């Protein structure tokens, strides 16, 4: 979540002292990003709204202890990710996860699908059916791998920030990210290859 430079920066001292305006500024500047992460983690708009509300309630309760060692946005992503993971654990959605690709003894995921679908027009790649498929594919990842992928690739955090948000080492983050990226590539390759095959018939 890039704190938008056109918006006034959140007054951290006022925020820690419980200033309501500073809190409102923080919520306004970060709610879109928190909601998006929550929606992509849970796959459900109502759950995403619950996670977002709970994230800001927790942030308000704990902001006095925010030391500023990480960016405010990274801290919020951390709370939001934990809230989403807790909700998913309660729902036991994580049992859906299926590994795609072939894993070597070193834990690397080797590609299986070798089809070049990059030539498909963007309109087709981002059709509403394709977008549904994209979202379904993301939900087949393990919750931990999905969180790493969303923070790093969709929210645009650096490796260090994403690792901080997940409270894991940077090398652990990279392993999760690699698995997520490769699995999503497999899923999308399978889907777009079948689309290309249908078009050729």
């Amino acid at each position, binding site marked *: 979540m890039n704190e938008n430079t056109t918006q006034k920066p959140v007054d951290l001292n006022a925020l820690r002292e419980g200033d309501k305006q500073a809190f409102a500024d923080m919520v306004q500047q970060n709610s879109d990003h928190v909601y998006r992460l929550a929606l992509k983690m849970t796959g459900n708009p109502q759950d995403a709204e619950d996670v977002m509300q709970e994230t800001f*309630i927790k942030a308000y309760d704990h902001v006095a202890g925010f030391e500023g060692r990480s960016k405010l946005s990274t801290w919020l992503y951390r709370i939001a990710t934990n809230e989403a993971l807790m909700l998913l654990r309660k729902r036991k959605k994580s049992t859906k996860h299926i590994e795609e690709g072939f894993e070597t003894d070193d834990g690397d995921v080797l590609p299986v699908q070798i089809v070049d679908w990059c030539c498909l027009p963007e309109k087709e790649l981002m059709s509403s059916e394709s977008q549904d498929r994209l979202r379904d594919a993301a939900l087949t990842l393990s919750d931990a791998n999905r969180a790493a992928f969303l923070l790093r690739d969709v929210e645009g955090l650096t490796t260090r920030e994403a690792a901080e948000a997940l409270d894991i080492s940077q090398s652990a983050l990279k392993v999760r990210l690699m698995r997520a990226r490769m699995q999503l590539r497999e899923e999308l390759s399978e889907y777009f290859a079948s689309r290309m095959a249908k078009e050729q018939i």
Partner: protein
Amino acid sequence: MHEHDMECQDIVKNLNGYIDGELDSELCSQLETHIQSCPKCQVVVNTLKKTIHLYQVDGEQTSLPEDARKRLYACLDLEDYVEKD
């Protein structure tokens, strides 16, 4: 991925670093040399980049619905503090 198994496996091992521009220049140019001569690795690299790109585009198209935003401000008792559009 059979003719150059070792090299192709090296690509997979370093794919994240390559895509994120985190490899040192020597390793990066070794990988690029291999990728240029290996159509299968080219497909993997290109489709992996495209996969990430599609998720980024999808993410950019996702925003907080206005009614959910209003409920958030109400739940946090912030209606009097937020800037109205």
